[in-house]
């Protein structure tokens, strides 16, 4: 081999390396795109995709830390157990009921509060402040506070009822009353969140639209239904997605207020998952329950996303 040919070889190798390096340092658009997306993809994979896959896998296992036995693949046995589990059905039904009651409830109350806070009067700031406080309060705090409000002996609710001449109730002694108290608390807590999002939405509606409607001859009610509501729709849908998913995951407030009682009559799916995984250490069954909740949340999100994209398509 001659010196020159060897030199050429070396030069060639240097050249390919430089090409590789420059591709890395000065990538074309596709490579650059992939490179820039990579950190986000890795992060999402690590914190979302991996745990969800692991959860799915665990839901097919018989894995109970209390048994000391190693994990065993049992297929759909956990899901089958669920079908026969009355507490699961009760908790799921309670969760759906809480969602169906508190989400529209919080929307209506929140919309009202937001409209009130958006009025051009001086009462605006106390209303806005009172919106912030329930929102800033941790959920478990709210649960604890309302648990005392509804306490049969020391609670303010019974006290007020007695003062106006009505008999008080042992709220947490009756499944219906306890459930009502929980729904009331969740609505109270959630409507401030709704109101804040809706208020932000309201403020993006130009005032001139209302002036144009004034000139066009539409009254306040008509303006609300013809302008405010349609223009708020995207905001409301987003608020509903957040709220519905949070409602499906309801845990803190019933946990603090009734602990699921009396009996298991006010337990929610999230509480039942927590109980099975954290208290009973039955990770297999707990994961299967969590998969059900995951599917419920995904269904709700899909419906809402469809609502949004349907709207944009029409635009």
């Amino acid at each position: 081999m001659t010196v020159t040919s060897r030199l050429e070889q070396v030069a060639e190798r240097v050249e390919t390396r430089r090409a590789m390096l420059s591709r890395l340092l000065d990538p074309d658009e596709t490579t650059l795109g992939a490179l820039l997306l990579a950190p986000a993809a890795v992060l999402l994979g690590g914190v979302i995709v991996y745990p969800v896959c692991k959860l799915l896998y665990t839901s097919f296992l018989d894995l109970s830390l209390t048994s000391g036995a190693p994990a065993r693949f049992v297929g759909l046995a956990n899901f089958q157990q669920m079908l026969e589990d009355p507490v699961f059905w009760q908790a799921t039904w309670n969760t759906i009921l809480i969602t169906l009651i508190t989400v529209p409830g919080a929307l209506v109350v929140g919309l009202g509060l937001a409209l009130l806070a958006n009025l051009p009067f001086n009462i605006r700031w106390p209303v806005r402040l009172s919106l912030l406080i329930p929102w800033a309060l941790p959920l478990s705090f709210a649960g604890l506070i309302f648990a005392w409000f509804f306490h049969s002996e020391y609670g303010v609710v019974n006290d007020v009822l007695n003062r106006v001449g009505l008999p008080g109730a042992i709220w947490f002694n009756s499944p219906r009353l306890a459930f009502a108290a929980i729904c009331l608390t969740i609505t109270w807590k959630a409507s401030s969140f709704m109101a804040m999002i809706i208020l932000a939405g309201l403020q993006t509606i130009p005032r001139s639209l209302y002036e144009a409607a004034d000139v066009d001859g539409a009254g306040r009610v008509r303006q609300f239904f013809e302008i405010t509501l349609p223009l708020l729709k995207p905001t409301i849908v987003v608020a509903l997605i957040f709220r519905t998913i949070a409602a499906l995951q309801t845990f803190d407030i019933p946990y603090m207020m009734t602990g699921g009682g009396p009996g298991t009559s006010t337990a929610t799916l999230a509480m039942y998952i927590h109980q099975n995984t954290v208290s009973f250490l039955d990770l297999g069954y707990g994961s299967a329950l969590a998969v059900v909740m995951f599917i419920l949340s995904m269904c709700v999100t899909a419906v809402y996303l469809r609502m949004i994209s349907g709207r944009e398509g029409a635009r």
Partner: protein
Amino acid sequence: MASVSLCKLDKSYGSYRVVKGIDLEIADGEFVVLVGPSGCGKSTTLRMIAGLESITGGEIRIGERVVNALPPRERDIAMVFQDYALYPHKTVRENMGFSLKVRGASAEEAEAKVAAAANMLGIAHLLDRRPGQLSGGQRQRVAMGRAIVRRPQVFLFDEPLSNLDAKLRGEVRAEIKRLHRAIGTTIVYVTHDQVEAMTLADRIVILRGGDIEQIGTPDEVYNNPASVFVGGFVGSPSMNFAKAKAAGGLLDFADGNRLPLAALGGCAMSAVDGREFIVGIRPEHFTTAATDTGLNCVVEVVEPLGSDTLVHFSIGGSTLTARLPPQARPTPGEALWIGLDPRKIHLFDTSTERVVH
């Protein structure tokens, strides 16, 4: 169609008086432009006519009715907003038909009126689109269409062209003028652009700090500005001002330049010796032709525009601009004799800044 009459109209926000008791009679079918710099109260006045702003004092009549306490919808007016205020979730058809629907018109009637208006404005092909799918000019036209479908007594325009580019503005301006000729409704139009005011108005109302500075036809306000402010506001490039003193039948600019008072016509009567004036001369009234009167100056800047040449020079401490024919090309630094027609000179009082008669 109806006349509009403002009587001692007043508006205050707290102690801040925005409109200071203005009087204005607008005849039926007239096109009146309210013009002035921002903060002059022109938009507030228009919004008070519309009923969007409450009235602190005075009276507004539309036709024979005092409308002070009436809400906008009962004033039988229509308004085109600066941002058009089209309902973004409604189609063009629904936008234009909204006021008819609200007022209980039948579907056929509304459809016919919308179609007629759309045809008039050349937007019939856009009826099924939403505002988001339209260009700026198209939106502007839809906003006008929404105003005319109902055939109200008065149209109110609030700076309707300010969101358009210069070329479109010229086109739409012509369109508005054509529209007014076609339907003949009374129009009150607010703008800060004196060109719009001059080209569109039957009469111009020049506002300044909540007061009316002058009311008149475009010719009147151009030829006989009532004040330094009006002189400076109307016309482009704007009127030149320089200080001068009356002395021995001459206007003395204190830098050696003098003009004979006798040549100035009527206004020279109040030129008592020693009185100071603000002298107003429009750039287009300078000439390179041989004249008896003129000014000696040194050329500072020359701006050839193609159609004209603008020459900047200073007289008595003020910088003046002359609009000269395009072939005139003095060089900066050159000493120049620049002629003018003394009858076109305006004299203003130095303290009141009002014109001297």
